[in-house]
């Protein structure tokens, strides 16, 4: 592909970024500003206990979170050893920061494996280290 062809292909992006595409996103209520990945250790009626990987601090840490602050549909999907994304987000409507849980998807018969998760997390950690 020549540079001229490439420019034509990207022209849509250049022109549409950011203004016309604003339409596609303007109803979105949140802007993610930071995300962690985590694994559920234990879940009780009141509390979620999990291990999370904090990229900002480059360390693994423990999370204790009140269940009543998580959407009930999401709680149903959280079980020991399940993986999740823990997002810090900016509510674009009121400007306040919130946290949100999003469960990691299970693909077909692939069983979420806690060892794989931490191998992946460790990989992320290594990448951070290598970039320094």
């Amino acid at each position: 592909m020549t540079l001229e062809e490439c420019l034509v292909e990207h022209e849509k992006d250049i022109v549409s970024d950011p203004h016309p595409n604003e339409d596609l996103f303007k109803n979105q209520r949140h802007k993610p500003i930071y995300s962690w990945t985590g694994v559920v250790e234990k879940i009780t009626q009141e509390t979620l206990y999990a291990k999370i990987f904090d990229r900002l601090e480059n360390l693994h840490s423990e999370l204790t979170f009140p269940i009543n602050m998580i959407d009930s549909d999401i709680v149903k999907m959280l079980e020991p050893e399940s993986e999740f994304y823990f997002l810090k987000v900016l509510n674009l409507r009121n400007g306040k920061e919130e946290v949100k849980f999003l469960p990691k998807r299970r693909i077909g018969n692939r069983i979420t494996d806690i060892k794989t998760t931490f191998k992946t997390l460790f990989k992320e950690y290594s990448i951070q280290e290598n970039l320094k």
Partner: protein
Amino acid sequence: MLDLKMTPFEEQVKFTLFPKYSFDPQEFNTAWLYREEIITKAESKNLSKISSSQDYMSYSSEFLNFEITPKSFTIQTRSSEILAYHFDITRSIASSISSRIRNDFDLRLNLHFRLKNAGKVKQTMKSLIEIDNYKGILNNIQSTAFQIEGKTEQKDFNFEERVLITPCGLKNGEKDIHIFLKNNIAFKDTIKDLNYFDEDFLRIVEKATKVFNFFIEKHIQL
């Protein structure tokens, strides 16, 4: 997920899946997304801005926008911070329609940087264009752009990347510069490999980060 040396004014991250033949956009409505367990009930409550016609379907969740045409299924976000989640959703979609899609997909990262002034934009482009005898340069009255392309063969997939750097073409964008990074990943076997792609995906993200930081440090932050 991108640890950049300079904060972009705006980010656009897109995964695009391609059909073997053609997609019927009407098939991939919001009900399909929930039925295939790609999104949860909680997430489905937040789907909005549905736009539909015979050859087009688009809707947004809290963090993602879905756009389907006969030629492509695109999932995009405005925050690279959720790249892992974004990839997870894309992988679920690919898994659900694996028999009907090609064995390659695109990952595009479009970063938009706002510089101090228009002179800084010109200075950045000049520094790129002065790279000795580089063929990927367009420098005429209409536009200025810099492009670099590369292809590598990995064990399970072929990887093509293209970087395009160009000033913003919008009326009020004279202080702005774009870096477009397009990656195409073509599996040697089937798209099902996407399910086992975690570590390779992290390597691609790491490489993208290095590419962006190279241009930020060498050319943009002059």
